[in-house]
């Protein structure tokens, strides 16, 4: 199949999924959720006030129009205004995505490269004590609650030893580095466990294949086999794992940002949750879903570049 036809077909499949996501969000936020007017006006509001507010928020329109609004916002990113700050939500998102990315992007790059290197290294020594103890350390690191990393990290490294800024943020290139260094470090510590374990499994799945035995029997060195042959064949699961994390980078680190006072998207979402700001939570849900869908298409297209056999299916 021609690659363009494949991409087109894959894009067409996005439509039902996107409509489904909007339906799910509509059901959750507009059908099942408790009446937001009670939350906004308090218990002592009279019926007239409530009706006025319902009209103002557009909740008195037919369900179908409300659903269409959500679908429209998934394409135009026009999410309306926040209930608590009255700001345009899209402006909030624009302002927040920069600081979020300054934390998540370097952290993601560092942790991905580091985990790949470690897992290739332990795959080389598979079955030996180095491999076994690395796996054990990874599992132990995964078992520590993420909040413990954040709280103890902030307390010990920033508060007690003063190695990093405790919290806050400064815009502009070199200025933000002292503020994002510790959140980055914690992100790396959080993701290295699952990453190494995953990459190691993927690489070991390949190591026992026939082509590896062939390569070895024709006298190739273990290094060439791992880097040239095994890594190439393990690319599909690795790409999936890497690309599918990207939407979460945009979403920001929900907990990290609030702890370190970084004005990113994670912090915005957390504030919206605490102040029952429906439109903002809904906008973040839509945004992250759209990002996820886009990146899953990109993953599928990357598959065909890495492994041409995929196109035939």
């Amino acid at each position: 199949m021609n690659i363009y036809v494949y991409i087109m077909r894959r894009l067409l499949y996005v439509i039902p999924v996107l409509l489904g996501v909007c339906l799910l969000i509509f059901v959750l936020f507009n059908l099942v959720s408790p009446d937001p007017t009670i939350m906004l006006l308090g218990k002592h509001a009279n019926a007239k006030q409530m009706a006025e507010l319902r009209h103002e928020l557009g909740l008195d329109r037919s369900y179908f129009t409300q659903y269409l609004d959500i679908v429209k916002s998934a394409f135009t990113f026009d999410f309306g205004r926040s209930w608590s700050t009255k700001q345009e939500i899209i402006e909030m998102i624009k302002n927040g995505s920069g600081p979020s990315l300054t934390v998540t992007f370097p952290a993601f790059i560092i942790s991905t490269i580091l985990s790949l290197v470690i897992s290739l290294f332990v795959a080389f020594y598979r079955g030996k004590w180095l491999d076994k103890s690395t796996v054990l350390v990874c599992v132990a690191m995964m078992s520590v609650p993420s909040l413990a990393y954040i709280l103890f990290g902030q307390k010990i490294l920033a508060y007690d030893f003063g190695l990093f800024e405790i919290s806050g943020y400064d815009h502009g290139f070199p200025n933000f580095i002292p503020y994002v260094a510790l959140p980055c470090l914690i992100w790396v510590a959080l993701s290295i466990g699952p990453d190494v374990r995953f990459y190691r499994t993927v690489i070991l799945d390949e190591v026992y294949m026939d082509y590896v035995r062939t390569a070895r029997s024709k006298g190739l060195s273990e290094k060439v086999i791992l880097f040239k042959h095994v890594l190439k064949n393990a690319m599909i699961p690795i790409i999936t794992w890497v690309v599918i994390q990207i939407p979460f980078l945009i979403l920001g680190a929900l907990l990290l940002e609030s702890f370190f006072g970084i004005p990113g998207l994670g912090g915005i979402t957390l504030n919206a949750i605490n102040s029952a700001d429906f439109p903002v939570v809904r906008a973040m849900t839509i945004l992250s879903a759209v990002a996820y869908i886009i990146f899953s298409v990109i993953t599928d297209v990357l598959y065909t570049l890495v492994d041409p056999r995929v196109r035939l299916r």
Partner: protein
Amino acid sequence: MEQVQTMGQATIVKSEKPKSKSLWQHAFESLMRDRYAKISIVIIAVYVAIALLTTLGFLAADWSREVGSSYAPPSLENWLGTDIFGRSVMAKMLKGTEVAISVGFITAMISVVIGVFLGAVSGYFGGKVDEMIVWFYTTVSSIPYIMLLVAITFILGKGLVSVYLALGLTSWVSLCRVIRAEVMRHKDREYVQAAGAIGGGDGRKLFKHIIPNVLHVVIINFSLQFQTAIKSEVILSYLGLGVQGRPSWGTMIDDAKLELARGVWWQLAAASFAMFLIVLAFNILGDSLRDALDPKLKGK
């Protein structure tokens, strides 16, 4: 040889060959050989026992009683110190086990029921049903887990029941996917055809014959789901969307964020350690179960 039955000329003889071991026997034996798996099972059993004892009121029933001054550090009297109201952190930690185990168990059950049912139906019947279910789980999985979780608890309101529902309703997708693929692999096998040939209907073929053969996937997933649920409960409680009015590890960690600056580390340490140990046990047990039950991995 023992003669069992004689019919005319032919005699039917009971085979003397020892019965071959089933997957489950193999799995059980390999688990029992695995030292780490045994330790993990013991740890999990202890946690379950603590949860049962606190539920029945034999242990930590007086967790809300004042036992010392506010924020007393760990001492011989109060091993893990006290919290802001002078309550024993040890008792709160034990009482919190109840929430963790119940969240883990109930959530994992919900996700197994939904995942197995949808996955089995989708894989077995195929066609339009399959397309619908695949569309449904693609849709659900398109919303990042944490956002969906937050959205559902946000809407259902605070409390333990919403935590069960939110975690259960969001965590079935991966199991559903695997079960669907496994059922598709099994449905045209000879043993299923044989079951059909002697008059078994779809329901019987699917639930009596195919499901037992893919059960190992469910068990591995259950142990994975259990620990994910425990971890997620903590995050939900931290976000203020979780358990209210009773101790849980999540609320303990939530309290700790304000205490830590004053040097009160014991509540956070106690809750983190309690969680660390059981999540670690489930992680190790999950790996051992996979090695023991997944025939594809045999010999690696």
